[in-house]
């Protein structure tokens, strides 16, 4: 026994270690070159005869980011941005499609735009742990830092506070807005716009950054074809007109460059994060009256038809913005830049030597990074012999290309070899394939496998082989195989829905082998299957059929039908409140002197129960009102049918205070019930309890989970509760309960509209009860918000395993008659008595729980190893960043947050509480 416990503990310790080791090999922390770049000695001074840095045409920049501004929102014929299109026709605007690399979320994109580097996938994690100082750009070389370092450099910033987090203390004047409620389409933008006219009159800044969030919010809320989309584009277009007119008319804006760009695009569902064409194709427009000089001989048609999907005009890389700004505004290219100066702008310089110098500086700076990545290769400025005919590695190809630059520079200087080297370097260095630390990938996967073996050794005896065991094994094997198929990672929910259906039907077959129920169609297992069918249609998730009809979006909950939703939500709250009141009634009875013997568990009087309901009602009501108020702000279409006067009264109350009241109430109730049950257990003097405290903790947790769930998903918890009831009728074996845990947790995860893509991560309730950002509470709330379903289904089967809170029948076995005519009945009752004793025996010790955890650990280790193996094998796959990497991050959250945190620690608390 002790040996198995040790194995199990080791296996669980190894899971996070394996994941960490794997992560360090999979997401190598890219070394970056510290310090600001300066103009350096360029070489070939004699042949080229250049003296100074080419004169910069611009000294100020207005950098306007419109979040999720997809290329077609500006360039397409459906666009509302007519003014920008007219500028393109006039030749005072130069349009591009700026390819954004995955992950297409704001923070890494801002990093790419400002540093010119390709942010690592690690930035995604840091995006959510925003306080991490290593993720700020304060110490990195960016065009902001360069502009600030210039003579009289002063920056101002209005809009998304991501910039303020990335660039602390950078801005002379700033007003950050956070995207707290996605339903806020206007205020986030008005908050930016109101500063602009005033700021345009100031001439003390040399960079003004504006970041509008409204368009992204509309996308998240209602997709790119939302009726709000065109009005928002027109609003943005008017902003562009205001700024452009100021630049055109004001003297101090004579040399101001105006850049309009999106940080990323959006897919047809209005989400972003992956690498679909819509998500990676934001618009990019450079505007200034001075651009006429270079657009003279260009095709200035607008609107135009896209070449590929969302590909309008020339497609450049998003990180080309940094070196281009450097050239146009006259500062050294930021050190970590991998972008290429945009060719069109070379025509600003009439002297060919200036053009060459610009590109050569860009190429030299990129060469330094290439040199650091491939230390063994020669990138010197000397002409030398190089064998460039054989098949070359990526590094060797670059060395050859650089050598070609050197050779050309020594004879006739043209711009083409530099361009070729730069583009090749950009492409090679952007693909991180060469950066994997394969030995760590192998080590991490092996450690995962070792953990699996250890967990396997910790299992209770496997013989006799049961069909449940076979089902469990088959599920794990099939899951492990499917993790290697990118489409099944995207559509993972289908696997779990499919396996769970089969499991419920299997339970039906198994139950009907023993005795035929007269309630054939209403057999608990059939009811489970029926409810499962509703659950799987609740939210459409996954990629392939994203946006397909589902229950939530069918319209039965929105608009004037929202009463239906709130009736169901109300029923869910009512149910859990009544459950809580029972626990409180028990606690009142414990301290009630009129009840003589507080040892019996069913001794609450009607007076106690009434008091308890009164005591719990405020908690339930506050939680419900909070949900209503939150939804009125977060998703107003779901509260459209609710009385407006009521809503106004509710919205007036502070959300933060209400959330704190709910959390506080839960903690207080928990402490009170625990104290009462502890006292009751002492008064019981050795007699056995029912494990009510475990049920109480579970019910309290349910309130917390519902608080962290979006309103339209709350009825799911009512369905879960009903499923829990039907499961309790089936008297499942411990192994069957473990399998049920696995299947229901996964099903619940996806049913609550999660996917394996980062775009579906829901942030909306991560700030409940918080007024400022602090990492640990936000991370905890974020986890609770996305894993609410799995948490519910991790703890619910524990209560079935120990039959917590069930009233024992206390059959007097010795008094049963052995005569033939009641033999059947006798055996039936004996069976019941046996089950009761078994469950109680389980509840009283840790063995059953340990075995349950051992089986879960086998599953978790197998799944984790499979995901790591898939990521390691597929590391050169086209979808590695869009499908496999996010899956690995999710697997990490499952392993650490769910398995160790909820299953291990949370489970131990609930199980321990049940022993009282």
């Amino acid at each position, binding site marked *: 026994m002790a040996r198995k416990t040790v194995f199990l503990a080791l296996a669980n310790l190894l899971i996070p270690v394996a994941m960490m080791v794997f992560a360090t090999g999979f997401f190598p922390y890219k070394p970056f070159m510290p310090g600001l770049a300066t103009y350096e000695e360029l070489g070939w001074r004699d042949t080229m005869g250049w003296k100074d840095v080419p004169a910069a045409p611009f000294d100020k920049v207005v950098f306007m980011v419109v979040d999720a501004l997809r290329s077609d929102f500006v360039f397409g014929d459906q666009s509302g941005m007519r003014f920008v299109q007219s500028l393109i026709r006039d030749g005072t605007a130069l349009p591009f499609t700026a390819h954004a690399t995955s992950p297409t979320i704001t923070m890494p994109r801002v990093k790419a735009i400002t540093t010119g580097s390709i942010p690592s996938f690690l930035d995604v994690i840091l995006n959510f742990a925003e306080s991490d100082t290593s993720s700020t750009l304060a110490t990195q070389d960016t065009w902001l830092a360069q502009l600030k370092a210039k003579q009289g450099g002063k920056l101002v910033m209005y809009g998304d506070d991501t910039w303020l987090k990335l660039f602390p203390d950078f801005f002379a004047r700033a007003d950050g807005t956070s995207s707290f409620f996605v339903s806020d389409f206007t205020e986030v933008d008005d908050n930016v716009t109101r500063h602009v006219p005033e700021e345009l009159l100031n001439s003390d800044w040399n960079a003004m950054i504006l970041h509008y969030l409204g368009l992204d919010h509309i996308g998240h809320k209602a997709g790119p074809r939302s009726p709000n989309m065109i009005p928002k584009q027109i609003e943005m277009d008017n902003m562009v007109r205001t700024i452009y007119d100021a630049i055109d008319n004001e003297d101090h804006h004579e040399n101001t460059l105006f850049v309009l760009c999106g940080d990323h695009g959006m897919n047809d569902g209005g989400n972003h994060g992956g690498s679909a064409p819509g998500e990676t194709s934001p618009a990019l427009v450079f505007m200034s009256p001075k651009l006429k000089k270079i657009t003279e001989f260009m095709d200035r048609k607008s609107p135009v038809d896209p070449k590929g999907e969302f590909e309008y005009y020339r497609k450049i890389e998003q990180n080309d913005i940094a070196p281009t700004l450097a050239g146009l505004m006259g500062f050294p290219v930021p050190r970590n830049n991998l972008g290429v100066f945009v060719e069109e702008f070379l025509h600003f310089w009439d002297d060919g030597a200036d053009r060459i110098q610009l590109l050569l500086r860009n190429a030299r700076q990129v060469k330094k990074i290439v040199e650091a990545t491939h230390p063994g290769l020669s990138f010197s400025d000397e002409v030398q012999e190089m064998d460039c005919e054989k098949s070359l590695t990526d590094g060797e190809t670059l060395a050859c290309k650089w050598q070609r630059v050197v050779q050309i520079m020594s004879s006739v200087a043209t711009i083409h070899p530099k361009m070729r080297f730069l583009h090749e370097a950009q492409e090679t260095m952007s693909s991180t394939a060469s950066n994997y630390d394969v030995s760590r990938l192998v080590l991490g996967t092996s450690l995962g496998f070792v953990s699996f073996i250890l967990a396997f050794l910790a299992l209770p005896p496997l013989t006799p082989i049961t069909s449940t065991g076979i089902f469990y094994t088959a599920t794990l094997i099939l899951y492990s195989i499917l993790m290697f198929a990118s489409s*099944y990672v995207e559509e993972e929910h289908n696997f779990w829905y*499919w396996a769970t259906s089969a499991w419920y039907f299997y339970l039906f077959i198994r139950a009907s082998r023993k005795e035929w129920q007269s309630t054939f169609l209403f057999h608990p297992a059939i009811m489970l299957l029926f409810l499962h069918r509703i659950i799987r249609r609740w939210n459409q998730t996954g990629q392939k059929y994203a946006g397909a009809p589902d229950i939530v979006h069918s319209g039965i909950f929105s608009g004037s039908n929202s009463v239906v939703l709130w009736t169901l939500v109300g029923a869910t709250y009512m149910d859990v409140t009544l459950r809580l009141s029972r626990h409180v009634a028990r606690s009142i009875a414990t301290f009630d002197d009129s009840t003589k013997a507080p040892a019996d568990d069913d001794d609450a009087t009607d007076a106690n129960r009434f008091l308890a309901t009164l005591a719990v009602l405020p908690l339930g009501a506050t939680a419900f009102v909070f949900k209503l108020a939150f939804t009125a702000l977060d998703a107003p279409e779901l509260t459209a049918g609710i009385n407006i006067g009521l809503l106004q009264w509710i919205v007036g109350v502070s959300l933060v205070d209400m959330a704190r009241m709910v959390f506080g109430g839960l903690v207080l109730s928990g402490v009170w019930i625990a104290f009462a049950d502890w006292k009751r257990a002492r008064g019981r003097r050795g007699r056995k309890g029912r494990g009510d405290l475990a049920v109480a903790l579970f019910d309290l947790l349910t309130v917390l989970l519902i608080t962290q769930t979006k309103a339209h998903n709350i009825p799911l918890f009512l369905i879960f509760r009903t499923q829990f009831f039907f499961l309790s009728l089936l008297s499942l074996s411990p192994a069957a309960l473990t399998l049920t845990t696995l299947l229901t947790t996964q099903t619940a995860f996806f049913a609550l509209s999660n996917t394996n893509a980062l775009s579906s991560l829901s942030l909306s309730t991560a700030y409940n009860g918080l007024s400022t950002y602090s990492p640990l509470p936000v991370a905890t709330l974020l986890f609770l918000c996305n894993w609410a379903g799995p948490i519910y289904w991790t703890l619910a089967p524990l209560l079935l395993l120990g039959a917590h809170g069930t009233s024992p029948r206390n059959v007097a076995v010795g008094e049963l008659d052995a005569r033939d005519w009641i033999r059947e009945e006798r055996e039936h009752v004996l069976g019941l008595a046996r089950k009761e004793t078994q469950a109680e025996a389980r509840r009283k010790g840790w063995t059953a729980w340990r075995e349950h955890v051992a089986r879960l650990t086998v599953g978790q280790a197998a799944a984790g190893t499979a995901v790591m193996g898939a990521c390691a094998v597929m590391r050169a796959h086209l979808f590695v960043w869009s499908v496999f990497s996010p899956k690995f991050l999710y697997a990490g959250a499952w392993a650490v947050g769910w398995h160790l945190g909820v299953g291990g620690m949370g489970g131990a608390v609930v199980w321990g509480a049940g022993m009282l």
Partner: protein
Amino acid sequence: MSITNLAAKPRPPATAIDILNNDTARLYTHIHPILVLSLYAFQFRSIVADPVPALTSTLIPLSILQVAYVALCLPPTGTAVPTEKKKPGEKKKQAPGKLESGVNGKIIPAFLSLVLSALAATPLVTVTLILFGAPISTHHAHTVLCGAHLSLLAILPLVFVHGVDGQTWRETVALLLPIDEVYGGMIGTFLGAWLGAVPIPLDWDREWQKWPVTIVTGAYIGYVVGKLMGGTLLKGRKIMFD
């Protein structure tokens, strides 16, 4: 409650169904799966192109094949007593004419089982399909036709050999009957249909991934495999759960 019912009506344990002891039966039982698969393979292209009319028209040849199979190879319900157990020299009391016994004893039960499986089993199977995730708001004809194909493959022979005895059907659902080629065919059909859902989410962008082509394909293959296994390797075995 049900236990007492069991005790009141003691039943002989169900035995595996043997195919009829004549050369036609022994031969046709092996030709039949080939014909069924060929029919499906022949129709596959048009089913993929336009499932509803193609699946509807395929029902007729499938019914004919299944009716022919049960009539030629299987003992109709109530006569399942194995012929070998007959004492040597014993004869049936009334030997009806060959044609008459053929029509009364085979053809009519075969058509009855066709009607029953088409009309009674199809709705049940369709509901089961929906419970397992078939679309409920769209593709109604697709799902019903899929249910009809499953019923004809799996249920028709079972009705022919077991009739409509409630207790036997309960045992059928509970997987308590001993395996034979009819029962194996049923289990194979449903397992195949269930496994047929696996390729649907893959991003291969093939036309045949659409509903319900993979399910029906899985069912046909499952039927043939199940029938073969049930008639040979697994014959007479019982499914054990624990």
